[in-house]
């Protein structure tokens, strides 16, 4: 039984933040859930997909976040409580629709969950999508612990129905992927087909009829709609004045007032406890961070001259509190604000209790308690000598290692300074040594093909480098298709290599439009990438990256052909895919007599360059060995070894 449906009301469970969000949505009776995978958000949809049939939900992994938000909005329009879930960059993808959606509003409760990654632990950026709430004028909430992650999610649906607009709930890695005690509420009851009124989209009213008219943004309607949206925001502000999710602990006249939100609240609490400052420093935790409730803030701002704003991400709260203080007028008095913008906290990267403690010490003129100096120095030295650097790398048996080996080798033989534009997935690691530093650009989903489409048109300017792009199979459907259409139509000279590993591997192997299952494992038709390309009149070749020699030859031939878009699909399932996991294809062995090691002339090609974690270089014996615990038996290293010392034997 799933962790999000099993506990009864009043029971305490240990829930990961993302499971708490999923449970909160279930307790609120969510019906429609859609989004696109992205760390640290993916578990929410994954968990709900697992209980979709028993709970009567519609849950989908959408082609991209914009479509996900649209599917969820359709739910709201059809009177079904709905939720869209994505990571911070997904909100950028969804943002065009988001602007229009929040202008015309929603019907049944609708929540947008954005799970963000301060410090970029599993991201290529520190995007902070809270700014959308301000820019597009809709309410934003941020849970401060695991209980709140559940309770606020459930409350967001009610709030959304009161306002008739979308509510955004923002989480961060240290909330989504952290776990804590949660007292459960009533689990969701299956409403589908059990006497509840059927889902229906009403559209007979006029354009301004929020619940019964067409849901249309239209030039002549902009001003009245925008005014109505601002009225909703004003109502939210009023509700937030008394929200139980805004809490204060500390003295009535604090020497310093901390204003904080999200996981930063836990850091602030810990730092105050470490420094014994609970009686001196006030701690105002805001659960509702846009719009800010002015009367609540005024009461606290009046009590202290020094204000320390502690938050994960960009100085969003920091700026907004300052603006509010200016708006509140001269009776607030002079203040000194501290935060990420003026030193006490670093301007970038995620926070932790130590950084907060250091900031507190700086502001209050105290010495932050530091760990034992001699110990730290000794431990630091031993870490340098005893903990060799552990770089990110492709898994043992990963097809991307073989694909990049082929691409890299073909480009070298081609010898015209060709390069590859990268994209987003595990294969982004093609930019680092495990992918032989093959990628020379990497930005947003689909951007590799878009950039290649541009580079591929610069021949009239004397540009003569061969241009390639890579795309994963899920990324192909998410954002590569429009770029590819652009490249074909404009006759760009480029090769797209689709590294098709049969799933959205990086985020935990979710299905996508090219796979045969839905989010919950039910059967769906798969779209064929090769046929889609053929319908665009593209020449397509399908090859196996594990057949290194033959596939390299194909790529060299494609490089020789001048002009237009060529697509090479390298098809081999992810080593962690359900079909492969735990199943060994080959037993690998090294013939110690045949391995000439440093006398070979190969310069330790297998361990030094190919660098699969399943190989061990034994510096004493001066031989390569197979690590039985790590090797998954893909067989690829056998084709790397020039002396044939690595052998593969098919597992019976």
């Amino acid at each position, binding site marked *: 039984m799933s962790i999000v449906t099993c506990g009864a009301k009043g029971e*305490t*469970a*240990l829930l990961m933040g993302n499971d708490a969000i999923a449970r909160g949505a279930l307790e609120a009776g969510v019906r429609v859930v859609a989004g696109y995978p992205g*760390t640290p958000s993916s578990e929410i949809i994954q968990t709900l997909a697992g209980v979709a049939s028993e709970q009567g939900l519609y849950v989908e992994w959408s082609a991209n976040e914009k479509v996900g938000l649209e599917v969820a909005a359709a739910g709201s329009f059809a009177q079904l409580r709905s939720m869209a879930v994505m990571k911070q960059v997904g909100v950028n993808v969804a943002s065009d629709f988001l602007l229009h959606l929040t202008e015309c509003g929603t019907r049944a409760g609708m929540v947008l969950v954005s799970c963000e990654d301060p410090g970029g*632990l*599993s*991201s290529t950026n520190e995007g902070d999508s809270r700014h959308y709430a301000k820019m597009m004028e809709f309410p934003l909430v941020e849970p401060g612990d*695991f209980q709140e992650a559940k309770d606020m999610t459930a409350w967001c649906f009610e709030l959304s129905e009161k306002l008739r607009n979308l509510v955004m709930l923002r989480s961060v890695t*240290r909330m989504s*992927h*952290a*776990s*804590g*005690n949660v007292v459960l509420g009533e689990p969701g009851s299956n409403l589908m087909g059990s006497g509840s009124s059927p889902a229906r989209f009403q559209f007979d009213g006029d354009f301004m009829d929020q619940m019964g008219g067409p849901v249309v943004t239209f030039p002549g309607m902009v001003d009245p709609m925008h005014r109505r949206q601002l009225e909703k925001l004003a109502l939210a502000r009023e509700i937030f004045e008394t929200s139980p999710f805004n809490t204060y602990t500390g003295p009535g006249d604090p020497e310093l007032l901390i204003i904080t939100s999200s996981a930063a609240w*836990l*850091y602030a609490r*810990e*730092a105050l406890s470490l420094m014994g400052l609970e009686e001196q420093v006030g701690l105002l935790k805001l659960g509702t961070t846009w719009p800010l409730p002015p009367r609540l803030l005024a009461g606290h701002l009046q009590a202290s001259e020094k204000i320390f704003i502690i938050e994960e991400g960009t100085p969003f709260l920091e700026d907004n509190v300052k603006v509010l203080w200016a708006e509140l007028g001269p009776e607030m008095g002079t203040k000194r604000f501290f935060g990420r913008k003026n030193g006490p906290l670093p301007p970038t990267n995620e926070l*932790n*209790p*130590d950084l907060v403690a250091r900031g507190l010490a700086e502001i209050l003129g105290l010495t932050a308690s*530091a*760990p*034992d100096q001699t*110990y730290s120095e*000794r*431990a*630091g030295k*031993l*870490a340098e*000598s*005893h*903990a*060799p*650097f*552990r*770089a*990110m*790398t*492709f*898994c043992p048996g990963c097809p991307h290692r073989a694909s990049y080996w082929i691409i890299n080798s073909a480009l070298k033989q081609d010898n015209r300074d060709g390069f590859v534009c990268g994209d987003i997935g*595990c294969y982004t690691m093609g930019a680092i*040594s*495990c992918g032989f530093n093959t990628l020379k650009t990497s930005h947003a989903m689909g951007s590799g093909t878009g950039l290649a489409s541009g580079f591929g048109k610069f021949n009239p300017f004397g540009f003569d480098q061969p241009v390639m792009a890579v795309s994963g199979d899920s990324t192909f459907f998410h954002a590569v298709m429009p770029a590819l259409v652009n490249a074909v139509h404009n006759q760009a000279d480029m090769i797209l290599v689709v590294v098709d590993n049969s799933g959205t591997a*990086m*985020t935990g192997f979710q299905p996508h439009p090219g796979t045969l299952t839905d989010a919950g494992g039910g059967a769906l038709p798969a779209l064929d990438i090769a046929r889609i390309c053929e319908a665009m009149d593209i020449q397509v070749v399908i090859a196996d990256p594990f057949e290194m020699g033959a596939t390299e030859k194909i790529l060299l031939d494609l490089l020789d052909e001048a002009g237009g878009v060529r697509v090479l699909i390298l098809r081999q399932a992810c080593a962690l895919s359900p079909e492969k996991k735990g199943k060994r294809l080959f037993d690998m062995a090294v013939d110690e007599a045949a391995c000439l090691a440093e006398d070979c002339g190969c310069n*330790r090609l297998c*361990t*030094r*360059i190919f*660098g*699969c*974690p399943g*190989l*061990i*270089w034994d*510096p004493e014996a001066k031989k390569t060995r197979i*690590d039985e*615990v*790590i090797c998954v038996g893909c067989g690829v290293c056998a084709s790397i070894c020039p002396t044939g010392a690595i052998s593969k034997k098919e597992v019976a």
Partner: protein
Amino acid sequence: MTAPQLPFDPYNLIITGVGGQGNVLASRLMGRMLVAQDYHITIGETFGASQRGGSVMSHLRISTQSAWSPQIPRGRAHMVIAIEPSETFRVLAAYGNPEVQVIWNTRPIHPISVITGQAVYPSREEISRGLTELSARHWPLDATDQAQIMGNPILGNIIMVGALSTISELPLGPDIFEKAIREMMPPAKVPVNLEAFSWGRGALTVK
């Protein structure tokens, strides 16, 4: 019902290793065992991209009082469970202190820097000497080797939990383990996990 007092509150436990060694499962399992006894548990974890061959770390805060930060403050770990030996040093550099205790699995997973020959992996003796220098007590444990004998190297994490149940004052006894593992695992996998826990529990002594 209130949870029994702990030697430290919060008690700070770090489980470290390399992606794929079952770090997350070990932390969730212990978290579950302790929540069932009315402790407040906060677990901080990194997984996602960082998992791909990289170091992983779970921070467990165990308290009779409340939730704590999902990141332990520097220098404040009480116990480190290292499923990969060299990772211990990375953890101690940030969270260690002279009173910390360490249980470490002896089986290395070589990082790419070692496979390529750019870096050298420390010998078992060097690791042991280093840990003697940096900890109050440390216990080596051939967890992966034993797990392989039991049929699957992944069981190393459960063996380590079993060892911890003997070494630490945390209430992680066999009954509570069995209850949690039955909730978390399909029935077919329960016996081998019980066997692994029990082996780990018997493998070390506090003395």
